[in-house]
């Protein structure tokens, strides 16, 4: 999923929009409550989303390791 779309959904959960080539400048708003988030707000939200994803991934890997599993084990199971 586009990180711009994720960021917009995080900041404006009810917004309806479209954009091209992952370019914030092309965002067209069809439904928007309040002001449109600025590019800097979007960029900050993207950083936060990526950090959260990394944290979740590391937590999952730690849980696997505690069970004596590796990512190769998961691949072997087709996951």
């Amino acid at each position, binding site marked *: 999923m*586009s990180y711009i779309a994720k960021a917009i959904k995080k900041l404006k959960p*009810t917004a*309806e929009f479209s*954009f091209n080539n992952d370019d914030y400048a092309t965002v067209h708003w069809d*439904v928007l409550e309040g002001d449109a988030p600025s590019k800097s707000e979007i960029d900050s939200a993207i950083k936060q989303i990526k950090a959260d994803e990394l944290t979740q991934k590391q937590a999952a890997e730690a849980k696997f390791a505690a069970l004596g599993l590796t990512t190769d084990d998961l691949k072997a199971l087709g996951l």
Partner: protein
Amino acid sequence: MPTATDLVTDLPADFEVFGQAVDTRLKALQPGTTLGDLAYSSATANTNTRLPIGSNGQFLTITAGVPAWTTTPAGGKVLQVVYASTTTSTNIATTSLTSTTLTASITPSSASSKVLIIANNNIYNDTAGRGAAAAITTGATTLIHQTDGNNGGTFNLSDSRGSATIPIQYLHSPATTSSITYTIKATSIGGANVTFQNGNSPSNILLFEIGA
């Protein structure tokens, strides 16, 4: 026609009469005057009608009960084809019809022609149980919108992520010889994010003008 007795009395004159009669009859049976002319029987006994030679590429047909030349029939033929594609990644997270950037224009050669539109859309969906509904539009007119009024239509995955190339077609009767622009649009079901041309993977459109 001179009799045997006539021939004895005035041979030269009788031959002239005889020859004229034969000439008139032959001309009635072979009325052609130009290379390639054809002759066909008329309603008058022993008299054929001249059909002047046609033009290059013409076909022989029947008009009002008699043979006639006609131009190449256009019915059912593909008269022209237009192809276009796009790789512009387009995220649609709206229930409003939005251009996917896939578009093509055609100028029909006849107002009676039809236009067959075939488009293949590369779509990526990242929300389980949600999807997109594609449409073919021209100007402000929506020719077909594949929505089922629920969670999809064109594309709907129960899995959390997935991509596919989804076709959409329509046979349009534009009744014009002016240029027409067809644009593929889409709505996202429930406002979920759907990506067309994900990763700049191409979508394409073909326009066929079909003779009436």
